[in-house]
């Protein structure tokens, strides 16, 4: 019996060892990206003698192979399923799953939070210089700080897990103090949300962004602030001006995406349509496109992501409403701008939006000098306050993509 068992084992092992490379090679160009991992597949390592001598060329094949292994997504999904339902781990794929919201896992540690004041200085200095330049050109600049979902729901972390409230509070305060010291006008949306009772409905339970209602509240607060500071009377869309509806489609938030959509969630994406539509034209990266601010799904079963708002991130978006009595606005920032942009255009003649992570034509300073908008907004979430590059590159002549 042992002989038979040995031979069956050897056959099975050989089949496993041979089938994986054979299937991988057979399907090598079948796809280019990994949807749930939200990234493209690793490139085939390029031949380079230095890398061969140092071993980097060989080790790069590991990632290439691992990305293309047949059934990769199924295997990863199974692993996540086992971690969630069988092993009941409190954190899966760096997402806290043991509370009522999906939150980012934050490593433990303590440090001196006074360091934030020093760290904030270069960012505030750049924003201050940029703000002064906008004013020299006849415009006004406001920085809008928005809490990210993790810090917003800090009190939803299970008690044994680190929420870093002690750090985010100090970091935000230091950043806004630095902005104040450099004469930058800002809107601290966390304070606004707090004043409204920090409503849970403003933020997604399964995505790192706010929900559309959170964006609406931010839009209202920002427009009220602009009107107050500048003494203008820009039109502001309120809830009463909108038909707000939830899409029936399942919503795949970014955190649930890391769990392969396995977290049971009834959350639905909301959109707000104007009761009195304002006609507009839209161009993305110089190309005319449909006059839509929502990328609505084709069917009710189709998964919806945060990319619903403005169709995701674009280097440059220009929306014209042809109302010359209103000022022109420029908004730049990361993806938190997207949901807000679905409303912002209603208050301006022309609204331009830049995402400096993707926009490569010219520097922000050059853009502003040429365009000369009356209103400039920078929208950033508080986990990005201290990150350089991308939308933090406000005071440099280098083009952002360089």
């Amino acid at each position, binding site marked *: 019996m042992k002989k038979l068992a040995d031979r069956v084992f050897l056959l099975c092992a050989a089949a496993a060892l041979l089938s994986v490379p054979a299937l991988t090679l057979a399907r090598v160009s079948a796809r280019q990206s990994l949807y749930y991992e939200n990234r493209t597949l690793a490139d085939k390592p390029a031949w380079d003698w230095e890398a061969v001598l140092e*071993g980097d060329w060989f080790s790069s094949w590991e990632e290439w192979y691992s990305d293309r292994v047949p059934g990769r997504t199924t295997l990863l999904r199974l692993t996540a399923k086992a971690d969630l339902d069988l092993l009941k781990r409190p954190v899966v794929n760096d997402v806290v799953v043991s509370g009522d919201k999906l939150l980012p896992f934050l490593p433990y540690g303590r440090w001196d939070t006074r360091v934030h004041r020093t760290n904030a200085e270069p960012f505030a200095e750049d924003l201050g210089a940029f703000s002064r330049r906008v004013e020299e050109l006849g415009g006004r600049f406001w920085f809008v700080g928005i809490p990210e979902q993790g810090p917003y729901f800090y009190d939803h972390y299970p008690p044994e897990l*680190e929420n870093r409230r002690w750090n985010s509070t100090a970091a935000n305060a230091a950043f806004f103090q630095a902005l104040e010291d450099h004469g930058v006008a800002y809107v601290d949306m966390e304070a606004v949300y707090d004043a409204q009772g920090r409503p849970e409905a403003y933020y997604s339970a399964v995505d790192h962004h706010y929900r559309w209602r959170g964006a609406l509240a931010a839009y209202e607060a920002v427009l009220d602030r602009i009107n107050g500071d500048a003494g203008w009377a820009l039109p502001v869309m309120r809830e009463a001006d909108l038909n707000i509806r939830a899409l029936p489609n399942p919503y795949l938030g970014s955190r649930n995406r890391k769990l392969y959509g396995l977290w049971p969630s009834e959350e639905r994406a909301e959109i707000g349509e104007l009761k009195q539509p304002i006609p507009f034209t839209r161009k993305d990266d110089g190309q005319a496109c449909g006059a839509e601010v929502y990328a609505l799904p084709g069917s009710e079963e189709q998964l919806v992501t945060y990319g619903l708002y403005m169709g995701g991130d674009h280097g440059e978006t220009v929306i014209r409403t042809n109302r010359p009595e209103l000022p022109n606005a420029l908004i730049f920032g990361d993806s938190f701008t997207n949901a807000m942009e679905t409303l912002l255009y209603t208050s301006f003649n022309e609204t331009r939006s830049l995402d400096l992570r993707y926009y490569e034509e010219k520097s922000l300073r050059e853009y502003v000098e040429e365009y000369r908008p009356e209103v400039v907004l920078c929208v950033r979430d508080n986990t990005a306050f201290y990150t350089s590059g991308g939308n933090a590159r406000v005071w440099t002549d280098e083009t952002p993509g360089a």
Partner: protein
Amino acid sequence: MVFSSMTFLFGFLPVLLAFYFLLPQRFRRGRNGVLLVFSLLFYAWGGLRLLGLMAVSIAVNYCGGLLAAPGRRFRRWAMWGAVAVNLALLGWFKYAGFLAENLVLLGLPVEPPEVTLPIGISFFTFQGMSYVLDVYRGEAPAERSPLRVALYIALFPQLVAGPIVRYTTVAGEIASRRETAGDAADGGVRFCVGLAKKMLLANALGQVADAAFRSRTVLSTAMAWLGALAYTGQIYFDFSGYSDMAIGLGRVFGFHFLENFNYPYLSRSATEFWRRWHISLSSWFRDYVYIPLGGSRCGPARQAGNILAVWLLTGLWHGAAWNFLLWGLYYAALLLGERFLWGRALERAPAALRHGYALFFIVVGWVLFRAESLADVSLMLRALFGISAPGGLGSGEALYYFKEFRWELLLAVPAALPLKGLLERRLNRRAREGSRPAAALLAWGPPALALALLALSAVKLVSSTFNPFIYFRF
């Protein structure tokens, strides 16, 4: 290249097996040639420049062996010459930086060299030296074929993380061996078990240990103990898992390497622990350092000196850092204590107490070993004993890591015990008594379990990015 990688499991290994087993068994030189070429490729995967060092090591030990053989003139010089070159290579690549850094600390104008540690250098250098020394002592024949010496030194299963195989163990099998389906199956099962130890247990426990050792500012007593225990598990499953894979792969190709671990955490003393842990290294130091120095056949002072020398070297072998030296001294002190002070009392103590004693000192020893600096050693030890732990006695961090990795932590306990042998003995007895289910379980159980473990490990391999082998840095 590491065994627990896609490129090894589903690239290198199937191609090697195909080339190797497509050659008829009678073409022994051909099969050895395939093994040598693939072994060199395996090593070159870490960087082609490493092949130069490997070539020097092979050449020095091959020539050293020929010239140090009994009957040769100046054979003593040849032996010392080969040992000196081996030690010089090891010294330069592993210790030059450490030495220079310490000279700089003493205020000397020394520029620390930028040397990258070649993987596995401690293993293949010791293996090469053992060959020359065995030939010099007349315990092994001088090998005339450079390819056989090259294959012995570069043989990929044990090349980068041991076990340290003596030439006498494999000399006969290099020249003539018979690969069988039974051996291949047993080797394959052993490989899968080793891979699972690494992928399913060691990597998970490593995450707990890493968290504890980098916790510093929030380290609590509970986290320190959890981390120390997790590291105790990690290093065992990591290293013994690698040895299982090496021994298993050896079996597939017809080699029978000696065991490197014998359930070390069952030990009842530090002395016993070192008879069960990394057996190939302990026996290397015993045979080539301790006994030549006089071993135990001398006065207590000399014995103590010999033990101290061996353990300082053992500490240094593991790494060029002060904490490794401290770890070596720690074991020297324990072994001396057991030999001259409390050994007899320990033998009379109840078994449970002896196990507890050994395990306690082993765990504390791993703290010295794992810490990245003497300051970290001090912090961890203070936290372990509740003396000014920054995070207090308990912490959310400890609770979280326990919850997150509770399955691996719990599974690690039976996995470190000799339950397999116990079960096998019972089943064998029942099979001999005529039980067909027992016989079926004995025959089909291990292969079925191995295939399941291979599948689970492969899933982990694809999904996990946390995959470091601890013993590669030695």
